[in-house]
């Protein structure tokens, strides 16, 4: 099996740039100093600060919803646009299964949050889900990041029943990450320990990918000049 690095999965290098910035290094310096697998590289970020300490369960769940929506849209669009149909049967099963799981996660978290659920953001994945290779690389990085995120936020949750539910999501996301790594022929479990990430750190990584986009304003208050 070949070792997977963030550089190899992150074609646009948006994730890599963000991670190296968090690590307090230049991208090149970070790569030189990090001869390890993708998940392990993500794990080398500083321990989560106490920034999440005053965050409510609703805020944590809303961030989880945002992240699940990101993943669900990523997989769903790839299926709708035919990217997944162009893959091998084994990869189709993998991608369609993960898409169905992420949509189920979105549905339940929205239901739990009810009126407190945040609005659905717009997403711009660029070429990341337009081709088999780009889709696969991004999916691996995204699943690793999800595991890191959930590992970081689950202990911050105040409600035990909610913690139990999020643990159920975390273990499934870890299976997704391992399956994704198996699909690309790399080590499914590259490290003996997954170091948690904070909301702040994951939010920073997401911001650098620019996957979450501004909702286009397609309505204007302007007098029409149509043919009438």
């Amino acid at each position, binding site marked *: 099996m070949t070792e997977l690095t963030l550089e190899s999965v992150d074609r646009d290098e948006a994730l890599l740039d963000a991670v190296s910035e968090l690590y307090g290094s230049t991208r090149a310096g970070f790569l030189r100093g990090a001869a390890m697998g993708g998940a392990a590289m993500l794990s080398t970020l500083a321990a989560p600060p106490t920034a999440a300490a005053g965050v409510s369960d609703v805020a944590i769940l809303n961030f989880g919803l945002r992240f699940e929506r990101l993943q669900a849209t990523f997989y769903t669009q790839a299926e709708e646009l035919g990217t997944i149909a162009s893959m091998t049967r084994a990869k189709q099963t993998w991608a369609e299964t993960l898409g169905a799981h992420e949509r189920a996660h979105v549905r339940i978290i929205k239901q739990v949050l009810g009126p407190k659920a945040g609005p659905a953001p717009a997403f*711009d994945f660029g070429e990341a889900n337009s081709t088999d290779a780009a889709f696969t690389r991004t999916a691996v990085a995204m699943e690793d990041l999800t595991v890191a995120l959930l590992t970081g936020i689950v202990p911050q949750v105040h409600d035990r029943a909610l913690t139990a539910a999020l643990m159920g999501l975390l273990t499934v996301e870890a299976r997704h990450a391992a399956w994704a790594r198996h699909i690309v022929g790399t080590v499914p479990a590259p490290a003996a320990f997954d170091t948690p990430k904070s909301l702040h750190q994951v939010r920073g990584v997401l911001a650098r990918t620019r996957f979450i986009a501004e909702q*286009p304003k397609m309505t204007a208050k302007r007098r029409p000049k*149509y043919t009438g």
Partner: protein
Amino acid sequence: MPRRPQTRRWQAVTLALLGAVAAVGVAAAAVRSPEKPAAAAGAGALPLPVAPAFVPGRPRPLGSTRHLSHWAIVKRPAIARVAPAAGAAVVAAVPTLAPEGTPSAVAVIAQRQDDGGRVWVHVRLPVLPNGTTGWVRRRALGGYEAVDTRLDVDLARLRATLYRDGRPVLRAPVGVGGPGWPTPRGEFYVRNKLTRYRSPAYGPVAFGTSARSPAATGWPAGGFVGIHGTDRPDLVPGRVSHGCIRMRNADIRALARRMPVGTPLTIH
């Protein structure tokens, strides 16, 4: 199927054995950990798992995408070409802003990767001649948006029908182009929506479409065909416009509640 008595006996024996093994284990643990008598004493009643606050429902496959269409804004000025190749002939320049000031939008037909690994998107363009399509680089476009609606305008019956997921959800009479000002036929899409303007002739809401009047090329802003309300409901249905699709104000309001930007439009 009812269980056989012999099976039940074996189950009872197995349970008794398991109980004995557990008892021995607890006793051994108590011997090994004399410093934690409280924990050992409570080991007979191991805690149950914490009931999760929620359990996701059954994962569902995506389902049919037959009635789904995609569109995207143009986020970088682009050149549309006749084929997905940098050297292919130019069809049109595609700006980032529509004449109405909203982002320019294109309808997505397909996407393809060229030999160099670049992704190209086949799009429907809001240019003359009507029906023009071209290939633009994926990176020139914003995120894909999906709609499950479709608007059908029947010029012969003077009627518009909005479909959602293949089912009709709104029917309304329309006014269309009169003699000398035909409403163009073909496949188009809804580009944007205008509201809160002061122009009774256009009613309370107007949609910009990608259709353009071949007879009104000198019209301000390029002669785009709109779908809008009216201050002359008595003329609807009828062949009364300069190419636009007019609806009674109650109907255009109902349409505005149901039809998102990006909706494909068929005029026939």
